C-alpha cells in the first residue's frame, strides 16, 4: 500500500502572508474609491438634469466637511491606485522597442505617471479657468 499522503496547506489569509500581496489587495481595494468618485460625479449630472435648485443643493453638499474629507481620501486612494497601476503596466504590454533597444520598465512606469500627472494638471487648469 502506498504510504503517500500529500498534505495540502490551507489558503486562509493568503494575502496577509506576503507584503507583495498586501500591496496588491490595497491596489484592488482603492479601485472602489475610483468607482465611488465616479458615482458622485454621475449623481451631480442627475441633479443638473433635475433643475437649478437640485443642482445648487448638490453644489452645497459638496462643500460639507464630510464631502471634503471624502474627496481628500479619494484623492490619496486614487493616487495610490494610479501609481501601482503604472507599476504593473510594463508587465502587461508587448515590449516597446525604441531605437533598436527595449524600453526599460521604469521608463514605461515613469512615462505613464507623467502622462497621468500632465492630464490631471491640464484638466485642473481648464476647469479652474472655466469656473472663474
Amino acid at each position, binding site marked *: 500500500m502506498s504510504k503517500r499522503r*500529500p*498534505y*495540502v496547506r490551507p489558503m486562509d489569509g493568503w494575502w496577509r502572508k*506576503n507584503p*507583495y500581496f498586501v500591496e496588491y489587495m490595497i491596489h484592488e481595494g482603492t479601485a472602489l474609491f475610483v468607482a465611488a468618485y465616479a458615482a458622485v460625479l454621475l449623481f451631480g449630472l442627475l441633479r443638473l438634469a433635475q433643475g437649478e435648485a437640485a443642482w445648487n443643493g448638490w453644489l452645497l453638499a459638496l462643500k460639507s466637511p464630510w464631502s471634503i474629507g471624502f474627496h481628500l481620501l479619494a484623492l490619496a486612494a486614487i493616487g495610490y491606485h494610479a501609481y501601482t497601476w503604472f507599476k*504593473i503596466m510594463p*508587465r*502587461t504590454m508587448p515590449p516597446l522597442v525604441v531605437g533598436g533597444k527595449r524600453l526599460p520598465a521604469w521608463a514605461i512606469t515613469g512615462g505613464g505617471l507623467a502622462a497621468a500627472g500632465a492630464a490631471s494638471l491640464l484638466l485642473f487648469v481648464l476647469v479652474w479657468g472655466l469656473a472663474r
Partner: protein
Amino acid sequence: MPEQQKTIEIEVLRYNPETDQVPYAQVFAVPFTDDMSVLQGVQYIKDYLDGSLSFRWSCRMAICGSCGMMINGEPSLSCQTFLRDYYPERVRVEALAHFPIERDLVINMEGFIEKLESIQPYIIPKEARTLAQGEYLQTPAQLNAYEQFSSCINCLLCYAACPQFGLNKDFVGPAALTLLHRYNMDSRDGGQAERMQLVNAEEGVFNCTAVGYCSEVCPKHVDPANAVNLNKTNSAMDYFLRFLAPKGGTK
C-alpha cells in the same frame, strides 16, 4: 586568523506522511560560514543532525530548478540564497507554497507535469519538410520574439508566488502558459490555433488578475506575467477573428 565560527537557527517545516497528521516546525542550530547557501545549511542538517530530512536539489548553481523553497515566506532557489543575509535572525524554510507537501520540503508536482504536457511544448511544423529542404532559418529578430520566454528552468517559484494558482489548482499557471507563448511566438511553429484553445479555456489566462509577483521571484527573468498578460490580448483577438474569418482563429 580563522574566522570565528557562527551558528544560525534554521526552522524547517517538517512533514512525514507516515506519522504526522499536519506539518510542524523544527529548529536546528547550524554552524555556517559566509559562503554557505540555505541549501548547504539544509544539507548540513541532513548530514549531521537529522538524516530523515527530505528535500530536492541537484546542480546547486541555479540551473536545474529543483531546489525551490519558501525562505522566510518568499519563493526562492535555496542554492542562490545565502545564510549570511539572514544571520543573526532565524531563517524559516518551508516547501514551495500552493503545492501539496509530499514530505518535508518535497512538493508534489504531478499537476504541473500534466499542464506542461497539455501545452504541447514542442515545435509543431507549419508544413511537412523534407531533409532536402535543409534547416530552418531564423533571423535575430525572430529569435528575439521568444528567447526570453525560453529561459525557464521549471523551478515553480512562480506558482508558489501566484495566489490564483493557490486558490484554483486547475489554472494552467505562469510557467506553463509562458512556455506555451514561447512556442506560439516561434517562427518555425504552426501550432498556435491548437494552443489558443487552452489559452481561452476556463483554466487559461483569464484566471490571472495581474498580481505580478511571479515575475518578481523568477530567478531567470523570464517575466511570466508578461507572457500571460499578452495572451489575454491574443485571446480577445482570437475571439473576434472567428467572426471575421471563419477559418482563422480557433473553433
